[in-house]
C-alpha cells in the first residue's frame, strides 16, 4: 500500500503536468487565431485565378500547355505535409495513414515522395521509398517564397517528364474542432469545365503581350497558390489539433487528480481509524 507521502507526491506531479498542458492549450489557441487569419487571407487569390483561367480557356488551346499535359504509365510524386512538432493528437497519424493508403493503392507503380514536416519525414525515411525532396523546420509564418521553394522541384519533375502526376496529402482546416485529411491532385492542373468557359466567354479581352503568355504566368501562379494553401491550411489545423489535444489532456489530468485525492483521503481515514482502534483497545486492556 502506498504511503500518504507517496500519494501527495503523485498528485503534485500530475498537477504540474496539468499546468503545462493548460499553458500549451492557451499558446496553441492564440497561435491558431493568427494562423486562421492567414488561411482566410489566402483564399481570394485562387478564386480570382480560376475566374481568369476560364476566360482565357475560351481563347487558346490550353491543353497544349506543359502544366496541363495528361500522361499515364509513369511515376507519381506524392507530397505529404505534416507538422514539425507533436503533441497534437492524431493530426500527423491521419496524414501518414492517408499517405500509406495512397501508396498501397498505387502498389506496383512508381511513387516518389516529397516530404514536408519532420513527423512525416521521420515516418517515411525508414520505408525504402524513393524520396525526391524534404523540407523540415518550416517557419510559423509561411511566406509565398516557402511555397515557391516546395513547388519548384515538383513542377520541374512534371514539366521535364520524370513524373506523370503530382498529388498532395495534407490536413485541411475545417473548423477549430475539425480537421480533414485531403488527398488531391496538384499536377496536371485541372482545366476549367465547359460551363465555366461558356460563362466567361462573353467578354472579349485584349491580351498584352499574348494569350499564351498570360496563360503561362497564370498557370505557374495557380500551382504555387495551391501549394501555398497546402502549407497554410495544415499550419492552422495543427494549432487547432494541438489545442483540442491539450484541452483533453488538461481534463484528463483533472479527473486523475480527483481520483488520486479520493484515494489519498481514504488512506488517511484508514490510518486515523487504525490509530483510534489502537488507542481504544489499549485503554480497554488496562
Amino acid at each position, binding site marked *: 500500500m502506498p504511503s500518504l507521502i507517496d500519494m501527495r507526491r503523485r498528485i503534485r506531479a500530475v498537477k504540474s503536468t496539468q499546468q503545462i498542458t493548460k499553458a500549451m492549450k492557451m499558446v496553441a489557441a492564440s497561435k491558431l487565431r493568427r494562423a486562421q487569419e492567414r488561411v482566410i487571407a*489566402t483564399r481570394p487569390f485562387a478564386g480570382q485565378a480560376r475566374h481568369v483561367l476560364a476566360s482565357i480557356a475560351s481563347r487558346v488551346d490550353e491543353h497544349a500547355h506543359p502544366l496541363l499535359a495528361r500522361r499515364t504509365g509513369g511515376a507519381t510524386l506524392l507530397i505529404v505535409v505534416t507538422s514539425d512538432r507533436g503533441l497534437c493528437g492524431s493530426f500527423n497519424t491521419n496524414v501518414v495513414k492517408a499517405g500509406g493508403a495512397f501508396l498501397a493503392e498505387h502498389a506496383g507503380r512508381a511513387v516518389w515522395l516529397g516530404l514536408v514536416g519532420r513527423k512525416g519525414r521521420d515516418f517515411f525515411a525508414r520505408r525504402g521509398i524513393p524520396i525526391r525532396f524534404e523540407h523540415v523546420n518550416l517557419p510559423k509564418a509561411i511566406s509565398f517564397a516557402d511555397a515557391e521553394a516546395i513547388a519548384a522541384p515538383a513542377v520541374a519533375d512534371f514539366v521535364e517528364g520524370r513524373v506523370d502526376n503530382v498529388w498532395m496529402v495534407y490536413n485541411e482546416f475545417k473548423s477549430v474542432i475539425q480537421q480533414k485529411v485531403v488527398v488531391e491532385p496538384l499536377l496536371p492542373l485541372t482545366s476549367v469545365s465547359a460551363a465555366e468557359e461558356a460563362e466567361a466567354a462573353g467578354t472579349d479581352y485584349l491580351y498584352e*503581350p499574348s494569350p499564351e503568355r498570360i496563360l503561362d504566368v497564370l498557370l505557374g501562379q495557380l500551382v504555387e497558390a495551391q501549394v501555398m494553401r497546402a502549407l497554410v491550411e495544415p499550419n492552422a489545423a495543427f494549432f487547432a489539433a494541438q489545442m483540442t489535444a491539450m484541452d483533453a489532456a488538461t481534463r484528463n489530468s483533472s479527473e486523475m487528480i480527483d481520483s488520486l485525492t479520493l484515494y489519498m483521503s481514504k488512506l488517511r481515514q484508514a490510518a486515523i481509524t487504525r490509530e483510534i482502534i489502537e488507542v481504544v483497545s489499549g485503554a480497554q486492556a488496562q
Partner: protein
Amino acid sequence: MAIPKHLQLEFVTPERAIVHDHVDEVELPGEEGDFGVLPGHAPLLAALRTGEMWYRKGSETRRAFIAGGFVEVVPDRVSILAPVAERAEDIDVARAEAAKRRAEERLAKASVVDFDAERARIALLRAITRLQISRQGRPPRG
C-alpha cells in the same frame, strides 16, 4: 453602355489581399510598358513586370510594389494577381537594403552567364524598386 464612375480594385497575392477598394484611376507596370486604367477601360488581360503601381482615389494617391503576375481589367473592375506585392508603407527598407547589398556582392563575384547571377540580378531589381518606392513618399504625378 454608360461609363462607370469608379473602378473596383481587387489586388491580391497568395499571402493576403493588398487592396480592396473603389478607386478612380490605376497605373500598372505592364510587361510591355506602364499603362493607366480609368473607369470604362476596354477588357484587358496583361502580364506585369517588377515595378511600381499606384492608384488614385479622389485626390489621394497610394503606391505599391509589385513583382510580376498579371491583371484583369473590365470596364468597372481591376483585378491584380501578383505572387509578391507590398504597399509602399509596408516595405521593409532595412531588408531591401540588405538584399540589395547581398545581390551586388554576388553579382560582383559571378560570371556573366551564371544562373545565380540571373537570380541575383532579379533580386537586385526587386530591392532597388522597393527602395525607390518607399523613398518617394509623394505620388509620381499631380
